[in-house]
């Protein structure tokens, strides 16, 4: 299959790549660039494990073709901590036990990060609905919500 030239900005790094148009952004991130922190749980956009941030929005990267992400700013789980300092959402997931097997965790953290950027003042109920696109099978969500609310508190007080 003929390949197309794309330029992806991922976690601040520029990648000039030749990719097949059928490859998803998820496949490009994982197989071409080697950023395997973003997970593939369903390939149909239903579980949220592959959530990354594209131009400030949470996106299920299995539903986006790599070629359409050309020129956009992409942040993956690997790009969230800065200078060895975990993002408050990452720290909150540790402190509350908001992860178990950890497979859905990158997606949850990226989705939560966007929610906190948009509005850290949401209620628990609002966060519960806003995170409805991400599936976790281990935690029953109780500690994930604790984590997100804790991170929201942190973001509010340091903002």
């Amino acid at each position, binding site marked *: 299959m003929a390949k197309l030239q794309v330029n992806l900005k991922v976690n601040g790094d520029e990648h000039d790549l030749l990719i097949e148009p059928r490859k998803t952004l998820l496949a490009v991130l994982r197989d071409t660039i080697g950023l*395997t922190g973003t*997970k593939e749980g369903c390939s*149909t956009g239903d579980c949220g494990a592959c959530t990354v941030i594209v131009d400030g929005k949470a996106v299920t990267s299995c539903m986006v073709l790599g070629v359409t992400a050309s020129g956009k700013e992409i942040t*993956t789980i690997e790009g969230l901590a800065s200078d060895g300092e975990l993002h408050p959402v990452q720290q909150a997931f540790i402190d*509350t*036990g908001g992860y*178990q097997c*950890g497979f859905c965790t990158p997606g949850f953290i990226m989705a939560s990060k966007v929610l906190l950027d948009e509005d850290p003042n949401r209620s628990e109920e609002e966060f519960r609905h806003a995170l409805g696109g991400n599936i*976790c099978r281990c935690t029953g969500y*109780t500690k994930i919500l604790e984590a997100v609310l804790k991170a929201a508190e942190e973001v509010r007080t340091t903002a």
Partner: protein
Amino acid sequence: MSEHTVVGRKVARVDAVEKVTGAAQYGADVHPPGMLYGKIVRSKHAHANIRGIDTSEAEKLPGVKAIITQDDVPSGRRVFATDKVLYLGEPLAAVAATDPDVAEEAAELIKIDYEVLPVVQDVMEAIKDSAPRLQGDDTKDGPNRREITTQIRRLSRDKENDHSDEISKLEAELENYPDEVYYNISAESHSDAGDVEKGFAECDVVVEDTYVIPRVHQTYMEPHVSVASADSSGKVTVWASTQGPFAIRSGIAGTLGIPLTQINVIGTTMGGGFGGRFGVIITHVPAVLLSQKTGRAVRVQMTREEEFTDGRPAPGCVIKLKTGATNDGRILARQALAFWDSGSVSGASIGSTIRVRGVYKIPNLKVDAYGVHTNKSGTAAYRAPGAPQAIFAGESQLDEIAKRIGMDPVKFRLMNMREEGDAVPAGASEPKVGYKETLEAVADAAGWWDREAGENQGWGVAVGDWTNGCGPGGVYVSVHEDGSARIFHGSMDITGTDTAISQIIAEILTVPYESVTIRRGDTDSAPYSTGSGGSVVTFTMGNTAKLAAEDAHQRILELASERLNMNVDNLELKDGAVHVISADPPKSISLGELAAYSLSTTGGPIVGKGAFARQPSTPALAAQIAKVEVDPETGRTRVLKLVASQDVGFAINPMAVEGQIEGGTVQGYAWAMMEEMQYGENGNINPGFVDYRVPTSADLPTVESVIVEVPAPNGPYGAKGVGEPPITPTLATMANAVNDAIGVRITELPIKPEKVVDALKSNGH
């Protein structure tokens, strides 16, 4: 206040940072140089004869490196179907190609010539004479026929006397049970205690119902994956997403006839398992075969759709249950007849039917269970395998009885629960278990005793029991010159077990939790360790870790005794140093100094070894209460409150224990309310998250967990396995709450809105 310093405390997990930064390496993250991508070719029919497999078109596709079928399995053990397929999605061949999309294209180009056969998906249809026979003549007698034929056999064996009259009478009696010849039976299990007929005769109330529990998928978030690499010497390395690397090693060895020592299985970080991640054929064996054929590393990864069609989910079943009690609330007899849908293989948790006994004193109990072949994939364990199904039936029916005799459902259960010293069928007497404490704890926490319910609101309670397994394990612990300790073992971390092991070692070596690190080895390097399933890890590996740390502790005291020239009896290890007891001025030597000193001693470095296999486990109880509100118009049930208590023995890391309770309870909720693998004329029809709904955070409120600690005599610090119990009562908890809210008893799960509306209609609403 606990006398412990590390165990019993909330700690961040040892794998915390790697899990929140994307650094943890799962199976699909492994990418050896030159790796090929495998794809399994699957049956498009649920039941068919295979007349031919034509791979010629696929072979021509550029990028295709190998195509294998059963002809490529040298041992002849069944990996791929040859002449017949028994379910939609059954593997027929596999492809390896340079790109995953090319592998998929090639798989589609392989032409299979099918002769389609009649399909049977429903267990109650499959046992009838009219059903197609799926795996030869697997005919068995039902319970009544079985009793008669057993008598006939016994009489026929007595050659001394003539029993021909009795025998012909009994043979005539068989005619009374024409429907009790069951077909397509894969396995059977029977047990009997007391005399149920007599028991039921003494009862004031007898309730009989049929409970139908659907097949559900474990739905671990990481689909099955393996990466295999066979080198020219015949050595095979497999990176596997599995709960049991040693089981996978022996499974590959047995299936492919490769010597054990030629196989190294590296367990990758596991994206959930819940019992479903032990299978060896599923991806591991095809990956090895493709790698052997191509001489390159090959990854075989299932899609979510393949997980639904060819995973090994939890079996559905039909349980006909009858329970009798007296008006003053004593349960006297219970009888179950169960049909478990084992799909295309045998087994399917049928032995778990006995769990209808629950934790109650039931003097008369009879259980007959059958596994039934249908045109579905085989099944496997799912968190307390078989227990949620059996306990759903048992605990739903108890609620009905409590209602008929006008007793509070919590009091009714408390009154009938077994107590320490009561006789139990397995021989030994009932140990001390927090049955009542756990139920009382949940009732208190939920506000059961002064509960209020608005219109269409209701409360439900149920309990479920489970006993953790046990298995062989080995642990080494080394103490280094900086005073840190390093643990080496071979069991897969199942959401927090590495942390519990680390806490135990830190506790015994009296060092900070942070100075202990843990490393899991592969099957080439690590001591043998049991699979991480059956709630075994904290119990088994915790005991093993304790032994290893105590061994190191002993060596530390010996070294200090040499170094300080003091008798061991005058020394104690405390706060990371060995102290001379009551020395004035205080005298001590740190672990780091002792570790450095050890390097030049005759006895050598500090290495503690622990090996353990078995000690009797103690049952655990999970008790749950839900408050729900049902909308009679739409049939939708909303959970207002969900409280879960559990006797965990001792919570080594309470944060992780709460996580297990919360997660297990929500899985139980999902089985009760949402999940169901559905089958049409040609196999599974809902192989994805749109049609097979699992809960999201929007579906439920916070689960309130309550930890009860009644120590297990043989558990590390009294700990019991905590992973499995919390899923066991929730199915009944939800059904009982819905019943309390709107007065209809749903006996067929899941409790979908349309079922509630239908049930209300037939109740005259």
